[in-house]
């Protein structure tokens, strides 16, 4: 039996954390929306990004495309979050790409061709959670190794040792501001790598 191994723990905690975050007055509570977004939308990000990468040539646009897709999905979901999310998410992605293709007058041969494949791939059964947890640790370690050494050290001191910024500054012999910059850079990259597993 599996209880909240690895990433599974985060959903209820995220929801609970929101208690003191902010109360929104939409039809669905902010808690529920965040929990829905974290547990149902974000896990689809690797498949979504794979799809976008195959369909859109300019790597520099991908994050913006993803953002636009999430916002469109969110606007539609605010009243009533859809279950399952995947068909809607990919419909939105497809429509957004078609808009862009039209606007840029591109004939989306690659995009159309790849779509079928990607959808099949993303329908594959989800691996066992323990496999996910193992993969996640491996992925994190790989990601950490990609960070510049000082940046990695700062992130490790925060995440492994649980030290504050001032404490890390003391330990590393650098200013609090520099620690802050290292942490921000490190966190930004790690978060992207965790959500989008194929990120370069």
């Amino acid at each position, binding site marked *: *039996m*599996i*209880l*909240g*191994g*690895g*990433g*599974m*723990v*985060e959903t*209820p*905690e*995220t929801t*609970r*954390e929101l208690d*003191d*975050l*902010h109360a929104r007055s939409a039809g669905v509570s902010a808690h529920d929306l965040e929990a829905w*977004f*974290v547990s149902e939308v*974000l896990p689809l990000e690797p498949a979504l990004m794979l799809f976008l990468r195959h369909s859109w040539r300019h790597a520099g646009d991908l*994050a*913006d495309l*993803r*953002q636009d897709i*999430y916002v469109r999905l*969110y606007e539609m979901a605010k009243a009533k979050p859809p279950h399952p999310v995947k068909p809607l998410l990919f419909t939105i992605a497809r429509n957004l790409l078609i808009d862009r293709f039209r*606007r*840029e*007058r591109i004939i989306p041969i690659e995009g159309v061709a790849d779509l079928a494949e990607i959808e099949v791939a993303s329908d594959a059964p989800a691996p066992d*959670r*323990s496999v996910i*947890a193992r993969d*996640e*640790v491996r992925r*994190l*370690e790989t990601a950490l190794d990609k960070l510049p050494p000082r940046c990695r*050290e700062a992130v490790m*001191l925060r*995440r*492994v*040792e*649980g*030290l*504050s*910024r*001032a*404490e890390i500054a*003391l*330990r590393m*012999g650098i200013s609090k501001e520099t620690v802050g910059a290292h*942490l*921000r850079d490190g*966190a*930004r990259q*790690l*978060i*992207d790598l*965790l*959500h989008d597993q194929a990120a370069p």
Partner: protein
Amino acid sequence: MSEQIHSAPTQSADAIHARAVEWLLAREDNEDWSEQDQAALDAWLNEAPENLLAYWRAKSGWKRTEVLSALRPFRPQPKPEATDRWKRLRLSMVAASVAVIGIAGVVAANWKTDSYVTYSTALGGHKTLALGDGSEIELNTDTVVRLPKGVGRQVVLEKGEAFFQVRHDDSNPFVVTTRSGRVVDLGTKFVIRQHDREVKVSLVEGRARFEGASQDGEKRSVVLDPGDVVLATADSVALMKKPARELRNELGWRRGMLIFRHETLAEAAAEFNRYNTEKIVVDPSVAHLEIRGTFHTADIALFARMTEKALGLHTSRKGNEISITH
């Protein structure tokens, strides 16, 4: 030819992601996060759905790195030269990190005798002692150790559990005495847990010698290598080997985490009960169910919810007691 301008988003996704991460870290770093701070964050989140979604995304991603901290093997951190000033600072800073991890630990240091100092942690407490010789002792919940004043290296573990990182010195061995034997360091990291009459020593790194208590003058002594675990009582010593991963999981408490991989519900509940005044009581009919998961030591509520969701069990609360039944 590009006509993208007319629908140009206010900010690039990368810029918003960076901003979201800044908010996240600022909030995490600031122990006196004020209402004004929160209002500023709320205002930013309300400004645009892009902001809100980027924040949710960043928060959940950052949270996932906690798993890493719980599972990661320990690497010695490069440490600057320990000047006296620095050492003092480090002690206070380690104490501060207790608050960062979010453990409500009350640490008390009492003068017991002239020659010894006693350090203890309350239920759910956690404290690191940096010794003058560069060694460190990390106390888990409900633990008492006794240290000689000055730079003594003869430590007594009165009760509870502690993790030792010892600066080795051939001419002056570091010795930890327990009720059921003692551990002599040979350059090492190890953890000792004392529970009732039984003591458990797990060697994480380096080498150490375990010497069983000897009523009859005959010492049972064994040299431990990494992965070795000794279970000793007053009149028995058992040695077994554990995989490194399992040892790391057992040390999750150093990060404030409980990590279960093959534990039964009863074992997991017993672990939680070491850290909290609220106690979990598991009905015998479901005690054998196996669970997996990673939890904060204080997060009984999440554990209870997960047993309901994942195992389909029922939980009920009465006073300080949470019962888990079929």
